[in-house]
């Protein structure tokens, strides 16, 4: 996995090569072209980018990470619990990216607030795929991203085949609402599933059945 740092020496030594990969001399904060990525599929270390997205773009990013479990965090700067919980998402990425977890954030802020969204993401160190819904906080966002309850925070967990296996959202019928620990527990299970499958196909199939029974699609 390559990690480029935009410090002076490597930039001077191979300016042409680095310019081709989008790293600016002097280590500026310039945004990479939308969709640019490296072998790992993640945004280069230290870079925080955000991209306006519709459902098609979202599907494209999911497809890019096919082969890895994917956690998607739907949030906005106007949603206080979302901004309070966002650090947990960043922590999950820091902790499990090397084990194969992909993370995507999708903001339901207005596209005109892109700068404020980017500032928040930079402060959080969100060095993963960050999307900003072109429909902002209005109904088409909830419609296009399948958020039935009309509300955030909302998380989706996809398995490495790109199948949606779990959703975390407010549930008026539940005795207890979901917590960050619940999300981490599910992430850990998916990551173990990925490595177990490699050693035993039968065990993989048995665990697949478990996953589909546990899926809570709301």
């Amino acid at each position, binding site marked *: 996995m390559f990690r480029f740092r935009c410090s002076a020496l490597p930039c001077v030594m191979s300016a042409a090569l680095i310019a081709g990969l989008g790293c600016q001399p002097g280590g500026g904060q310039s945004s990479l072209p939308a969709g640019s990525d490296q072998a790992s599929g993640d945004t280069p270390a230290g870079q925080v980018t955000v991209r306006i997205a519709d459902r098609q773009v979202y599907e494209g990013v999911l497809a890019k990470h096919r082969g890895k479990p994917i956690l998607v965090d739907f949030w906005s700067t106007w949603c206080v619990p979302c901004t309070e919980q966002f650090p947990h998402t960043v922590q999950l990425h820091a902790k499990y990216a090397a084990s194969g977890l992909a993370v995507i954030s999708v903001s339901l802020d207005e596209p005109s607030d892109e700068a404020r969204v980017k500032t928040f993401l930079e402060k959080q160190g969100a060095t993963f795929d960050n999307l900003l819904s072109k429909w902002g*906080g*209005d*109904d088409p966002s909830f419609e296009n991203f399948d958020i039935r*309850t*009309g*509300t955030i925070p909302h998380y989706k967990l996809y398995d490495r085949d790109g199948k949606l296996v779990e959703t975390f959202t407010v*549930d*008026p019928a539940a005795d207890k609402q979901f917590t960050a620990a619940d999300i981490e527990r599910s992430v850990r299970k998916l990551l173990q599933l990925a490595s177990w499958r490699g050693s035993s196909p039968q065990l993989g199939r048995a665990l697949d059945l478990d996953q589909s029974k546990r899926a809570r699609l709301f």
Partner: protein
Amino acid sequence: MNRGHFAVTLAACLAVLVFSVAGLAGDFNSKVSVGDPGAGFKNLAGVDGKSHSMDDYKSAKVLVLCFTCNHCPVAVAYEDRFVEFAKAYKSKGVQFVAINVNNLDADKLPAMKKRAEEKGFNFPYLYDPSQESARAYGATCTPHLFVLCPERKIAYMGAFDDSNNADKATKLFVKDAVDALLAGKKPPVTETRQRGCSIKYD
């Protein structure tokens, strides 16, 4: 109250019942469907210092319940619209009632009183710390609206209109539903997706 008008609204209420599909739940609501009886509430403290129960409003033709709160920016963006609506429809026999179930300091009764004064709330703003009223309606966010006809069945549920931005709202779901009921008709749209900040269920 004009008994003729009441009868017409009642007829619309029954029409909603007849035409509603007896499904397990709504499109965007896991607990209730359009046509279900709206759950009652009892003895909720209001910002007026009094206790309020749903029966207090039984003489209203149409009851509009609005689960809302203080802190959510989406709910705040709707406050003026709620005040305008209550003002326009009170004389038509429509009662708007706001209920907060969040137990955050920013949303509790003292803060609710302050907000009601600042914004000139012309409707009851009630506090339900048990959160039972919201759970009974399957309310997921603030604001989340339920329009109840004279028989107190759910005739419409979901968003107030189609945009958080008042200037961009063109589909006035609650207003259209209420107008229809008052005219003895079934609401043209009986359910939309609600939209806002998650209710903070304990």
